């Protein structure tokens, strides 16, 4: 019985491992920024929170930091942005994150 209980506990905690390695500050920051993108409407408090929670289920925190960095830095001007726009690791990370974020947004009724 004991073993069984432990296994259950492990099974239950496994998917949560990802979901809880995002610091609170980062989730809040994501939601704030996402809300600003949507005229700060109350509705987006829920939709943006939903999106970051979905993302947090799919990738761990370090991967999130790196790949979201790669996506936002694609917009950098001049040669600087090149290491994120051109073929290679930066672009791959950005593409992966964009796809994941699009999927998460869709699941959260975001346009």
């Amino acid at each position, binding site marked *: 019985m004991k073993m069984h209980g432990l296994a259950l506990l492990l099974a239950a905690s496994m998917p949560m491992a990802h979901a809880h390695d995002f610091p609170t500050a980062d989730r809040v920051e994501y939601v704030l920024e996402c809300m600003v993108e949507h005229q700060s409407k109350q509705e987006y408090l829920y939709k943006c929170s939903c999106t970051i929670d979905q993302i947090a289920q799919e990738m761990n925190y370090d991967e999130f930091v790196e790949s979201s960095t790669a*996506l936002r830095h694609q917009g950098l001007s001049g040669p*600087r942005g090149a*290491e994120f726009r051109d073929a290679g*690791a*930066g672009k791959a990370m*950005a593409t992966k994150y*964009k796809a994941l974020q699009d999927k998460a947004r869709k699941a959260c009724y975001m346009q």
Partner: protein
Amino acid sequence: MSSGLSLKHWQRCMIVLALPTLAFASDVEQLTKNPKNWAMQAGGMANQRYSELKEINKDNAKTLQVAWTFSTGVLRGHEGGPLVVGDTMFVHSPFPNQVYALNLEDQSIRWKYEPKQDPAVIAVMCCDTVSRGVAYSDGKVFLQQADTTLVALDAKTGKELWKVVTGDPKKGETATNTPHVFKDKVITGISGGEFGVRGRITAYDMNTGKQVWKAFSTGPDEDMLMNPATTMTWTDGKMAPVGKDSSLKTWKGDQWKIGGGTTWGWYSYDPQTNLMYYGTGNPSTWNPRQRPGDNKWSMTIFARNLDTGEAKWVYQMTPHDEWDYDGVNEMILADIKVKGQTRKALVHFDRNGFGYTLDRVTGDLLVAQKYDPVVNWASHVDMKSGRPIVNAKYSTDKNGPDVNSKGICPSALGSKDQQPASYSPKTGLFYVPTNHVCMDYEPFAIEYTAGQPYVGSTLSMYPAPESHGGMGNFIAWDAGTGKVVWSKPEKFSVWSGALSTAGDVVFYGTLEGYIKAVDNNGKELWKFKTPSGIIGNVNTWEYKGHQYIGVLSGIGGWAGIGLAAGLDKPNEGLGAVGGYKDLAKYTNLGGTLTVFALPPK
């Protein structure tokens, strides 16, 4: 010439005020000797970015926490850092180049200055609208605006004391460098190497804004303040005079007039030799076939007499540049052991991937070694001629226009860009933020039009192949032997300036937005994620008995912008305008100064 007139005027002043002028040329040097201040962008005139403060040390750095933050309210890249003089902090923003004076007691704003500038200047800034910060001396704050205006403000009130225009944005001339105050002069440079401007450096009287001297990077000797008989350069294993027309001879026709050689880096000054040091940027265009010759004195380390501007010695690192390896990076002055002998050295980590150690008094070349092992455009620097031995495979000139030269390391970003390294006199090592990126480079023919980009090359960049997969390293370097002591891999290029301290902690920032503390062996002690990527420099100061660490974050990119701006295509935006005009509608967060301290006791 106006410079001659003002020189005479200045000499008269010297005679009248000889004693006081010499004794109190400016107070900034004295201020930098007190580690409680951070009175110059690099902490001091030697560009060491080292602090004697040690309340924060390798044992307690892991407990650092946010003490306060300040938003500049401006998006885009935030380079440079805050100055601290006594109980006041001076912090700047990118274009429109705001300056804030903050009261350290409660972080309230004492004054704010915002210059009126024509936003048209943004279109002629190649690489974002950055500013590398303000300078301070004698109750004045000096701001170098993007539109080339240099302005002196009253440090108490923020009121304009004088201003002077140093270039013409209509010709593609802009400014991104910090002004440097050495003795009684404010020295400033020019940006615009991608627009075919003619680089130069100009010295102004700190008190009046009158031009004292101006020295071009290319052209006739008199424009460059070169003395054919006494300006020396490394020749056949020893120093020899440069001779007449040393620049003119190395250009086709009058190409030197649009030859680049801009001066937007970090200068240093040695009061003992009265020499100031700085580097010049790439020759224009990026298509090397169009400008045969060595293109002197682009890509050059200059040592100039501070009072007259005359060049004492020069050293060209990348003759006839074929890769955009600007030579503007910081010149660090340090007394270090080379082959068992203590030398008054100048150490420079060039974009071209070589770390150079020169005798800063004579200009003798002492060490030139790769500070990233992947560097391949040259096999080595020939120590007799001082010239790099270029690998023909990676010569974009030999391969010619419309041929894509592949696998060149480093990329045009350089093994390091302007982000300044730090030197710790305590460990004798240099701590260097680096790029680990290679490129394919395809030059093409281009016509020069004033005020238009004069680039002439298509690039593609990627992480150094067959390495750790990341695009950056943070390294420790022994400039006496030219060896990497340790190398800490980073996912992205490290574009933030480093800081080393007597507390045996070295700080730097990353593009993810982390500020990191490592020990002298490169072991990570602490990291904290600031609101945006860090391309600013980490600074430190003391206020009311406690040490603080501060860094600007803010790089421009925000979530969603990449796709919103449709910048998903390779090569887009390169050397051109980085305009995403509607950024403001995405966020009002802007760049942020984050200040850290140990927990309250």
